[in-house]
């Protein structure tokens, strides 16, 4: 029997009830949200339940929505059932003041660096992570660069005198 999105949805709702929200079927895959306290439970259920079997973690990343008060940061998991070839997107939202979330490293060894990357760029604290430190940026960095409060440099700025890069400076 092929694994259908209806089955996944009903299995999740049976197990977690009201906690599963915003179930949508997008152009690429189905996606849903759950409270951040339940993220590991949901992942574990999807992993261990024999009829679901989402045992391949494709990707972890985060998105910053500065306008959504109390749920500014979204952590997005992409899961894949390789046997049935079904993909699933799972999101949890967290506030930017307390960006803590349970780590998925116990389930997936691959989550280790993906979570480090997510921490590096968004400052999400993965509770229980074995080695949560920056991975692509320098260790001394004091901010989380992919958050929206850090815009890229304005290409038209003129207050900066670095002729070497062809921006601003005086024209001779």
């Amino acid at each position: 029997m092929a694994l259908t999105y209806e089955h996944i949805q009903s299995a999740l709702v049976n197990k977690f009830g009201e906690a599963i929200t915003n179930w949508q079927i997008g152009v690429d895959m189905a996606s849903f949200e759950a409270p951040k306290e339940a993220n590991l439970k949901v992942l574990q259920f999807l992993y261990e339940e024999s009829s679901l079997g989402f045992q391949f973690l494709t990707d972890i990343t985060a998105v910053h929505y500065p306008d959504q008060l109390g749920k500014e940061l979204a952590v997005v998991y992409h899961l894949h059932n390789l046997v049935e070839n079904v993909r699933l997107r799972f999101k949890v939202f967290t506030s930017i003041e307390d960006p803590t979330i349970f780590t998925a490293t116990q389930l997936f060894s691959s989550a280790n660096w993906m979570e480090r990357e997510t921490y590096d760029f968004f400052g999400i604290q993965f509770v229980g992570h074995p080695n949560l430190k920056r991975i692509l940026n320098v260790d001394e960095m004091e901010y989380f660069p992919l958050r929206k409060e850090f815009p890229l440099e304005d290409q038209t700025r003129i207050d900066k005198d670095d002729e070497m890069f062809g921006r601003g400076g005086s024209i001779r």
Partner: protein
Amino acid sequence: MNDHKHIILEEGNIQKQTTTLNLGPTHPATHGVFQNIVELDGERVVKAEQTVGYIHRAFEKLAERRPLYQVTPITDRLNYCSSPINNIGWHLTCEKLLGVKTPKRVDYLRVIVMELARIADHLICNSIVGVDTGAFTGFLYVFQYRELIYEIYEEICGSRLTTNIGRIGGFERDFTPAAFEKIEKFLKEYPAVLKEFEDLFNRNRIFMERTQGTGGISAERALNYGFTGPNLRAAGVDYDVRVHNPYCSYEDFDFEVPVGSTGDNYDRFLVRNGEMWQSLSIIKQAMQKLEQFKGTDADVYHADVPEYYLPEKKDVYTKMEALIWHFKIIMGEIDMPKGEVYFSVEGGNGELGYYLISDGGRTPYRLHFRRPCFIYYQAFEEIVKGSMLSDTIVTLSSLNLIAGEMDA
């Protein structure tokens, strides 16, 4: 000759201690800028720590300020051994978001370019495995044909390494007759070269001894570590994005997915060689399919998406409509539809995914690249623990780690 003093250790005075060795960031053994700090007990690796990020260029941040067509050159610089796959993967992601349907001929042209890129990618990886085991000949020999592939790119898009090939909707121009000639030449000459390359290595006793049983990983661990591409298939899992989630009309082609069993360096090498044969067969099939198009269909090289497809320059100078679209696209004045999409293609070294979120603006709200080698490189310590240092070097090259992709 022998007048230097030997250190003579007294009986029972030998202390067991480990040595720390830095492989990289710039080291002849690491093909790319990344560091491995290995702790050695004699010649055996007891601990390894990887440091990445030396060439991090903040692509995901940069993409948030660029219209879709300006993101393409960024994707070039991920896995720069097979840039066309990255470019076309990105175009396909945009097309998925925009709901663009491409004509079959465009799909087949893209398949040709992507498979050429796959051959170039596997070629460099496999021949480097040869170099690292001490066999330089194969490397030198096949590189002529990598050069020919680059000439084909050049004929199609004008550049060689960072190709920026194609546009949303198709290609900027039809393949020239010279491009087809070069592809035919490649199809004609390359099989003999690949055969000779295989003859040099596949049953070579030294090569087999160096690669068999080293750097192996079980299918279970490989899946848990998020392996994809040839490295996963070498461990015996037949997951290939081209088959599982066909894109770009891959479902029209008849090809096999080579798999290994032990996931060691030798299997990875064989799987890549097998894939090169399959890619050749796919290109041949695509060339045959192209001949079916007759009349105006035979000149189609892009989909009809004026909002995103940059018009041809001669039209820009002579036609009002084209001039308007050109201006709007270049100035980034096109609003994208709202939505989010994850799309993946089978890259040179695994599943290359693009997670694109649009809030209805002119640039992506967020773009994330799923870079296969960033994800599987973390398994390195587990793979090499307990093995010899020299095997570590071979493992490093046979994993096909590309620093540009790892660091994004």
